[in-house]
């Protein structure tokens, strides 16, 4: 990397220049730490702010494209100013609060729900030296943040004092508990394989062995992707705010900018999870040597949006699950697969380290074996738990599912 401070390819350069300047000026280590931390936080917050605005436009345009309509296209060129118009509308609206609501918790919920969403970005490596807090337990930290979101959503649902809101938040809690397990077990496979829980360590592993982890952990990626779709409350699994069942779920009573915060946090969470997937499975900033030409953080943002596109694609194409289907999917399908995957990875890593095999020989074999087993397991499990496809069903499916006998045919 070049070391000119104005070289934009490595944003670490201006920071390291700044640190050197501060050290020369005789500033103590504690203050240097504070100043660099603040600078990094400002950078990340800027990215989050811009992303939250841009993503509204991206999401609506892409879903429009998927559903063969146009999406926002009137305000500004290609409708680019639509998010700003939306935000102005939301700010102008009156922030209503029900008389029976629990006032303090009602106001607090949309504010604190932003905390885990933003904190997740702190441990992500944006470049070789660009990580705000390089925790040893980065993966666990992200999982812990994901589990706390439940409480904020419950606060919102409970404080609204509305039965739909309460139903929605109880659904979120039940769903998040279920989907946390497959997600954790899927990431356990990744952590076992890489041998570290630090996110920059996992990127370093992929750099060292010149390969992305997606080639060794396809099943883990699939399980984590589906599990995080549920945790994000996005459409195939958005039973928390299912419009057709419980109106808007936990944010039914929120209006104005409080609703805007919930809307924004959904987008920020989606970006955070995309960034985690891009880091763990797609190499983060490392892209087969391309990061020497293009700055790593631009590649990383590109990967984030590639994963985010898949989430939008899900949202545009898949219908909503019923709540029992969603639970059964987590417990009967994702969880056993995740356990099998963790077991498989443990055996592979054991064989690899115990017999001290050459990585260049072993890793391609692991990749092929894992891909084959992923396919076989998914098909076999689907066959085992799913109902067989009937070409000519004898009676309507809904009747059979809820076990209601068909009415007797009327006498002719």
């Amino acid at each position: 990397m070049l070391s000119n401070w104005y070289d934009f390819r490595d944003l670490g350069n201006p920071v390291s220049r700044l640190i050197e300047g501060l050290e020369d000026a005789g500033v103590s280590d504690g203050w240097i730490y504070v100043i660099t931390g603040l600078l990094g936080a400002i950078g990340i917050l800027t990215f989050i702010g811009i992303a939250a605005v841009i993503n509204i436009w991206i999401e609506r345009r892409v879903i429009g494209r998927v559903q063969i309509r146009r999406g926002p296209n009137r305000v500004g060129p290609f409708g680019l100013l639509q998010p700003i118009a939306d935000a102005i509308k939301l700010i102008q609206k009156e922030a209503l609060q029900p008389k029976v609501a629990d006032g303090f918790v009602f106001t607090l919920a949309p504010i604190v729900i932003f905390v885990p969403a933003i904190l997740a970005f702190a441990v992500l490596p944006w470049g070789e030296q660009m990580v705000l807090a390089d925790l040893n337990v980065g993966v666990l930290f992200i999982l812990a943040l994901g589990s706390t979101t439940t409480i904020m959503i419950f606060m919102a649902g409970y404080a609204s004092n509305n039965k739909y809101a309460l139903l929605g938040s109880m659904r979120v809690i039940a769903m998040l508990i279920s989907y946390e397990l497959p997600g954790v077990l899927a990431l356990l496979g990744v952590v076992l394989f890489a041998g570290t829980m630090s996110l920059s360590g996992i990127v370093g592993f992929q750099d060292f062995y010149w390969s992305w982890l997606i080639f060794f952990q396809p099943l883990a990626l699939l399980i984590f992707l589906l599990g995080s779709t549920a945790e994000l409350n996005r459409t195939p699994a958005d039973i928390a705010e299912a419009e057709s069942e419980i109106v808007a779920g936990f944010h039914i009573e929120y209006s104005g900018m409080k609703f805007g915060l919930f809307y924004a946090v959904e987008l920020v969470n989606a970006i955070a999870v995309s960034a985690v997937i891009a880091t763990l499975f797609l190499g983060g900033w490392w892209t087969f040597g391309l990061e020497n030409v293009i700055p790593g953080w631009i590649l990383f943002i590109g990967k984030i949006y590639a994963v985010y596109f898949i989430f939008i694609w899900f949202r545009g194409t898949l219908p909503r699950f019923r709540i029992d289907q969603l639970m059964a999917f987590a417990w009967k399908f994702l969880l056993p697969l995740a356990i099998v995957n963790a077991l498989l990875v443990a055996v592979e890593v054991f064989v690899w380290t115990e017999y001290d095999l050459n990585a260049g020989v072993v890793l391609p074999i692991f990749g092929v074996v894992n891909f084959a087993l992923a396919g076989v397991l998914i098909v076999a499990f689907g066959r085992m738990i799913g109902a067989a496809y009937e070409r000519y069903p004898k009676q309507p499916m809904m009747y059979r599912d809820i076990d209601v006998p068909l009415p007797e045919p009327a006498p002719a």
Partner: protein
Amino acid sequence: MVIAFWTLAALTLGAAAMIIVVRNLLHAVLFLILSFIGVAGLYITLSADFVAVAQILIYAGAIAVLMIFAVMLTPRSSRNNAGNFLQLPALVLSGLIAAGAAIVAYETEWREADRGSFDTTAAQIGDALLSPFVLPFEIASVLLVAAMIGAIVLVRED
């Protein structure tokens, strides 16, 4: 470090006191979560990063949700708690326990560890769990599996 310790200690103890003071059960659960987070912060000041994150994951994430479920499934949980005649005995008992703990903590001669902090606590904990403490670890997991199967058997309808 000192400022962080006192802030976190005040947060933890203040939240713990508010659990008792507030009448609303759900507010008490929320203060309990705040108290858990304060304890996690205290672990961070002790550079026990794994324990701190596990504290948030398990206590603020899972145990709190369990408590929320318990409160929501309690009939008439929306009714605020009234005072009852056990207030004074409870105060005396908890005061005695707190005094006992304080005296023991004050009288003990604490040894200072002469090594620095561990670099990676996660790896150390993993090694410790699987070599010297493997038997308690396995017993705990067998116990948890038994509890899980028991719960499933209890609620099965057929």
